């Protein structure tokens, strides 16, 4: 709508809705019928390996790429055919895209200047944002004099200066070193809370996604595998892809077969388990062929046979990594398993150990459909 000759997009709910959005490049389908909704003021993450369609999704939302099928809404407004500049979204690209010949101040002020905001207003807002991100001292300098973290902060300031309806951050922490990334994680989280706007970011790092986002949407090969809070994804993964992707060191998988004997139900295979309690859920599987998934942290390792159920194994190698030890073991049947041991206990090659599996935390999947049953 136009008010006194200027285009103004009404500032109200800034939720984002994708309805069966698909996109292909030549014959390769990069987005396959994506449907999700990001709530107003939510801090939302798209998680997936390189090539899973994260950036394309963000570009479709920003309007620099057009969906082949489906609808994209911002608030209640259908934006499929709205050019980027009218969508009122701001996007931080992975490469940061700062003007090298402009000072920090000019870079940050740029999105407002091109929209012809009055100079006093611009100055006021730049100062406000600079204070929020603690970059007042960088305003007079040019980007080439910045360190990695400083570049990142200035680019962030540029992305949030305009109070756009939706802020898009494409891999915001991928270009900075490990230590700085830990600090920026906290800072981004604080920023998201303080500015109270809808923010969508993408990452390939599950730790980044888990630690920052309110909800995570996992993309793999252009399809959505699960949307949920960090704890939902970790504790109740819906398929094998999620099991593989979330958690470090990654989950152990064992091909197992389901068997019933009288009132009891068992998994047989490299790991044998009594699964009577889960029988009703497992019967929903298409066949008896299942996959058992257990996180390394849900297996206790001890140097003595601590209970009747303990599985005997020998140590292959162990890796002390500080607060815990990753132990690679092999069962008597030859199955390799990763488990987490106590910090600074020595697990030597060929030592005998006993494993106890926490049966409340196992995941059982259908081998064919890869859907999680338990």
């Amino acid at each position, binding site marked *: 709508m136009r008010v006194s000759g200027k285009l103004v997009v009404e500032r109200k709910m800034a939720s984002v809705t994708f309805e069966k959005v698909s996109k292909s490049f030549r014959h390769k389908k990069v987005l396959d019928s994506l449907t999700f909704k990001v709530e107003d003021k939510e801090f939302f993450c798209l998680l997936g390996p390189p090539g899973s369609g994260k950036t394309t999704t963000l570009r479709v939302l920003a309007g620099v790429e057009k969906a082949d099928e489906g609808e994209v809404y911002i608030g209640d407004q259908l934006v499929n055919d709205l050019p980027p500049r009218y969508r009122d979204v701001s996007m931080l690209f992975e490469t940061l895209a700062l003007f090298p010949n402009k000072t920090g101040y000019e870079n940050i002020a740029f999105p407002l200047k091109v929209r012809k905001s009055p100079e006093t207003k611009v100055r006021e807002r730049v100062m406000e944002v600079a204070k929020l991100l603690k970059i007042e001292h960088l305003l007079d300098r040019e980007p080439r004099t910045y360190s990695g973290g400083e570049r990142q902060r200035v680019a962030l300031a540029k992305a949030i200066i305009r109070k756009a309806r939706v802020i898009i951050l494409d891999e915001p922490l991928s270009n900075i070193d490990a230590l700085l990334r*830990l600090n920026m994680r906290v800072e981004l989280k*604080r920023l998201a*809370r303080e500015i109270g706007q809808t923010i969508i970011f993408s990452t390939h790092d599950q730790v980044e996604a888990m630690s920052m986002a309110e909800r995570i949407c996992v993309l793999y090969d252009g399809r959505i595998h699960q949307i949920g809070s960090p704890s939902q994804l970790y504790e109740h993964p819906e398929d094998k892809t999620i099991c593989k992707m979330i958690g470090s060191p990654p989950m152990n998988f064992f091909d197992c077969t389901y068997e019933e004997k009288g009132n009891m139900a068992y998994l047989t295979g490299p790991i044998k388990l009594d699964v009577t309690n889960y029988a009703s859920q497992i019967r929903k599987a298409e066949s008896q062929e299942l996959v058992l998934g257990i996180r390394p942290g849900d297996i206790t390792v001890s140097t003595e046979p601590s209970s009747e159920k303990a599985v005997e194994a020998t140590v292959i190698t162990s890796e002390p*990594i500080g607060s815990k030890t*990753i132990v690679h073991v092999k069962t008597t049947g030859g199955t390799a398993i990763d488990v987490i041991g106590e910090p*600074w206990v020595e697990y030597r090659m060929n030592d005998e150990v006993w494993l106890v599996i926490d049966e409340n935390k196992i995941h059982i999947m259908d081998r064919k459909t890869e859907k999680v049953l338990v």
Partner: protein
Amino acid sequence: MDITEIFLEKLRKEYRSLVAVKDLTLKVEDRSLVTLLGPSGCGKTTTLKMICGLIPPTSGEIYFDNVKVTYLRPQERKAGLVFQDYAVFPTMSAFDNIAFGLKIKGVPKREIKKRVMEVAETLNIVEVLNTMPGRMTQSELQSIALARTLVTNPSVLLLDEPLSNLDAAFRIRMRAELKRLQKEIQQTVIYVTHDQIEAMSISDRIAIMNLGVLHQYGTPSEVYNQPKTKFVAGFIGSPPMNFIDCTFLEDVGCLDLGFGRLDIGKFKDIVDEEASSSELIMGVRPEDIKVESKPEFKESMEIVVEAYEPLGDEAIVDADLGGNLVRMAVPITLTANPGDKKYVRFDLNRIHIIDKKTENVIV
């Protein structure tokens, strides 16, 4: 099998005014895996190149089993170097790649075949011996590069960031594989990396370097639990150790942390004696801070939560303590929201007291 013990004596390398490696003395025991660890520019790769003879040291000596090799040519000292990018010949099959080193030495064909097969069996690559490198996976390429060096029977195997080209999940698998292999073939290995987790997980001993200076040489447990300098304390461990600036109050034997006081009891005398001034730094690892919802103990200190980062089975609570961003690892069962009040305690046996001026760890 021959015994290979490597001894570096006051090894030094200067490039004009820059001292790349400063008087490094280091003993690598037979059949052990020693890692040179440090950020880029710490001198670790320069050291490796001096050991294999690619660059001559400015001063100092290198001994292999008490034999001075400092000025021997690379081919005369039997050190096997595996490059970061593998440098596998793309036009030769895996077999020819592995056999190359023996061929140019004029080893008879039958002998070559026997030794290549032996190495290939240890590394589990017998099936790919006839494959061309273009069709191999990263792990196979890596194994070929390793096999090619191992087949020449080096007295020491030198690995320069061998895992840095691999993606994260695969790197974790390969490092366990390398460790298993090293124990199995009982080969002395010197390994270079900038990744502390890799170093911790794979090494018998770690030499931590920064700006050409050796900061500490010890087992993973020693460098983690008893760091000698602030650099080592901060470099080893993830998330890294927290540093909190503090002042030593001599008369009461307390550290003034800015947000509370910590009685250091038994450490009072040693701090009194060794600290160069009352300006100290307290170092404490994220998992060594006890976080509770209620002030149950008299030593509990109140903090305000800045961020809460769930990571699956544990979470990180971030808070501003006296102007320092401090991370605390807590079980996932303890939840917190920004602005919440929590209470922390420090275990005297799990803190490190560091001299702010000299950056040496006192306790």
